[in-house]
């Protein structure tokens, strides 16, 4: 191998493995995040799912807000959609920190769902590990190493063109892992390059804030305000009647399209200067830009609208849209979910290859045991941690105070336990954790099915996915980890 090949190999193998400890959990949680609303629905069995008309939902929401929040300067209404079939209402003094409630889409009754981060936890962990800006730097750095590992991987495994479509599960262990690594990597290469690149693009501002900081006098939000027009005015203090929100909804649908309104924001309801703003869904376009229109709350005249954007906005938001996959409906969500897991599988097989190679050279020395344990904690361990989060959701009583924090604590404690377990049980840990994860999947699916999960489409989907995952985990535990010589 040429010196350059050796250097690339080192970068690919070691850089890839060390960052895969983080990238595998990031890919797994990112895949789950594709189904964020469905997971939230699963985690809040109190939520109901009834089809309804947008105008009926808006009328119910307005009644609720009039009763409970008539003196509040901000109201927000999230209309029911196919994926979130209930009404979200929110009110308060600061539009960024509103008090929220969920209403049944047909009766308008509050649903009193349990407190939980729901599916959003996976999105949050995927984006910044719940650490804020430092977390974004860490995930961003991992993303850049991932790009380097992908490109160096294409150069190292250049023979894969000759071996395209080749999978030899019954050949030697090394051969089998290498085939799996190459095939899953090559098959999902367009997706992996796209998702990693767009992920880095989303974080670009976080890496290099200096230019925006300098150009906008230290106020990066001013950049956004330049692009997203806001139509606001001060309250007059003069009370005035408001046209029914359903009238505003109809006017908004005339501009944005029928059934296309996703939410309404009311500024200063009951004031002469009150405004009603309607936002459009982004689920039928690649570029994640939400058109919006604003009406005078009292007489319904158009106050402002933004339905056309600067071309650069479309260009940038198309990359964000490509990453977050709100377009393309159910087929695309499944493709993203499976492709993301395929990426995790590719990294797991790469880790298995390197661990095996190092063991053959160095034996069971102390660093080897640590590398093995870290591998186990990142691969079956992060799956177990995610399942622990779902299990905690069912085990912690619905009324418990601060339960959403306890659920997240369950994720991180089980993750830490998988690392300790892997350090203690050494290579047997791989098999044991795969079996445990498989059992947890099946138990969760059965428990939910027998506690009413069958009535709700989203919960049924999550349960079936859990069952399939359980079967797959069990098969891989038998296939690859039977005798404990995982790698």
């Amino acid at each position: 191998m040429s010196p350059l090949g050796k250097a690339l190999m080192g970068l690919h193998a070691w850089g890839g493995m060390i960052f895969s400890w983080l990238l595998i959990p990031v890919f797994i949680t990112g895949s789950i995040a594709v189904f964020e609303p469905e997971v939230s629905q699963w985690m809040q069995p109190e939520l109901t799912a009834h089809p309804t008309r947008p105008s009926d939902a808006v009328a119910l929401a307005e009644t609720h807000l009039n009763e409970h929040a008539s003196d509040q300067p901000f109201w927000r209404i999230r209309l029911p959609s196919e994926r979130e079939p209930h009404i979200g209402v929110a009110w308060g003094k600061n539009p960024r920190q509103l008090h929220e409630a969920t209403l049944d889409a047909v009766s308008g009754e509050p649903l009193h769902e349990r407190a939980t981060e729901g599916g959003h936890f996976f999105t949050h962990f995927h984006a910044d590990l719940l650490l804020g800006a430092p977390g974004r730097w860490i995930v961003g750095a991992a993303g850049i190493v991932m790009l380097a590992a992908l490109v160096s991987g294409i150069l190292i495994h250049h023979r894969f063109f000759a071996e395209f479509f080749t999978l030899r599960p019954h050949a030697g262990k090394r051969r089998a892992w290498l085939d799996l690594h190459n095939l899953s990597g090559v098959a999902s290469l367009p997706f992996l390059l796209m998702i990693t690149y767009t992920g880095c693009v989303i974080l670009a501002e976080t890496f290099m804030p200096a230019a925006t900081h300098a150009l906008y006098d230290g106020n990066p939000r001013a950049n956004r305000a330049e692009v997203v027009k806001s139509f606001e005015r001060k309250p007059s203090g003069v009370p005035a009647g408001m046209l029914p929100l359903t009238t505003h909804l109809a006017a908004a649908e005339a501009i944005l399209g029928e059934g296309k309104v996703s939410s309404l924001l009311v500024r200063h309801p009951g004031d002469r200067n009150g405004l009603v703003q309607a936002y459009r869904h982004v689920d039928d376009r690649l570029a994640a830009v939400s058109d919006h229109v604003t009406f005078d709350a009292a007489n319904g005249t158009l106050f402002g609208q933004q339905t056309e954007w600067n071309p650069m906005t479309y260009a940038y938001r198309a990359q964000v849209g490509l990453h977050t996959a709100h377009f393309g409906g159910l087929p695309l969500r499944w493709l993203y979910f499976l492709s993301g897991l395929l990426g995790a599988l590719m990294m797991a097989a790469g880790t298995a290859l390197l661990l095996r190679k190092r063991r053959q050279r160095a034996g069971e020395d102390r660093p080897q045991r640590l590398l093995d344990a870290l591998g186990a904690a990142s691969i079956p361990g992060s799956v177990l941690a995610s399942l622990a989060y779902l299990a905690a959701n069912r085990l912690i009583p619905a009324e418990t105070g601060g339960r959403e924090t306890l659920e997240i604590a369950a994720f991180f404690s089980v993750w830490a336990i998988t690392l300790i377990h892997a350090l203690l049980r050494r290579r047997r840990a791989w098999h044991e954790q795969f079996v445990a994860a498989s059992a947890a999947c099946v138990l969760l699916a059965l428990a939910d099915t027998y506690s009413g999960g069958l009535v709700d489409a989203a919960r049924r989907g999550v349960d079936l996915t859990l069952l399939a995952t359980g079967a797959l985990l069990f098969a891989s535990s038998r296939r690859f980890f039977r005798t404990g010589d995982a790698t």
Partner: protein
Amino acid sequence: MMPLLVTGLLTLVAMGCLALGMERHFHAWLGRAATPRQRKDLRLAGWFLLAGAIALSIRHWGASIGPVIWLGVLTFAILGVALILAVRGR
């Protein structure tokens, strides 16, 4: 779901043709060597079917979303062909 299935099936057959257009997979699948002419025809058919699949997804999902869905489908078509060949290869 129907357009997805059709696109998926077309892409799967296309990738199958491309795989059989390769010496080793043709031999593993049919137990004999392919003539250069057969391999060329299979590869040609594969590329044609791929073009058909992408045209179909652009027609159904539009020029911006169609190619994305097609690329996603491609991933699983490659996997599918590899799995079929692996099972046959036993």
